[in-house]
């Protein structure tokens, strides 16, 4: 964890949670979340921690300035995980809604990644922190 994610009150806490599922579309959510985190546009956060009901993780998501949840397909595992944790305030992207067909091929197409990246960027608001 870098310093910007701990006690930096001006930190940008826009947060991404990805289903990271075992399909092309699931892995696209994972790759795009990693890329945007590496680019400093948002921070990629552990959906498994939310699913595991780790209190600090759930509260960290609740405290984020903005949350975007990424699901690969309409099964909506990430959204259901959020709902089960009582987290309802987030933007939402489903990769198959962007015209990407779900397969079990993990050689991800650059065009599919680009489309998803653009959709997530469109949902991300400006950098901000909660008062």
């Amino acid at each position, binding site marked *: *964890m870098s310093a910007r994610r701990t006690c930096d009150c001006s930190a940008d806490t826009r947060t991404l949670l990805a289903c990271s599922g075992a399909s092309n579309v699931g892995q696209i959510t994972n790759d795009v979340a990693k890329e945007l985190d590496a680019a400093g546009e948002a921070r990629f956060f552990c959906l498994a921690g939310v699913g595991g009901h*780790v209190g*600090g993780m759930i*509260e960290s998501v609740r405290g984020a300035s903005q949350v975007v949840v990424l699901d690969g397909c309409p099964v909506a595992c990430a959204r259901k995980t959020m709902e089960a944790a009582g987290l309802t305030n987030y933007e939402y992207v489903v990769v198959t809604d962007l015209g990407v067909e779900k397969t079990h091929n993990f050689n991800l197409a650059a065009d599919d990644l680009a489309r998803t990246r653009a959709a997530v960027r469109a949902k991300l608001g400006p950098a901000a922190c909660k008062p």
Partner: protein
Amino acid sequence: MKKIQVLGTGCPKCRKLAENAEAAAKAAGIEYSLEKVTSINDIMKFGVMLTPALAVDGVVKVCGKVPGVDEIRAILS
């Protein structure tokens, strides 16, 4: 005895949260202990990725903001 923990590496917001927590505990008239958890490794054990954070009896209640005295008092009661 309530165990109040303020999680954060020590920026002004963390210090303000500790002050508010202390004031809330005093106003509530409860027995309490107040601990500042400043090590990033210890903070991470709570799953907290956003500080300052407040835990009561080991349960994280608030992350990423400084709740007011009244809000903390409600959490403690």
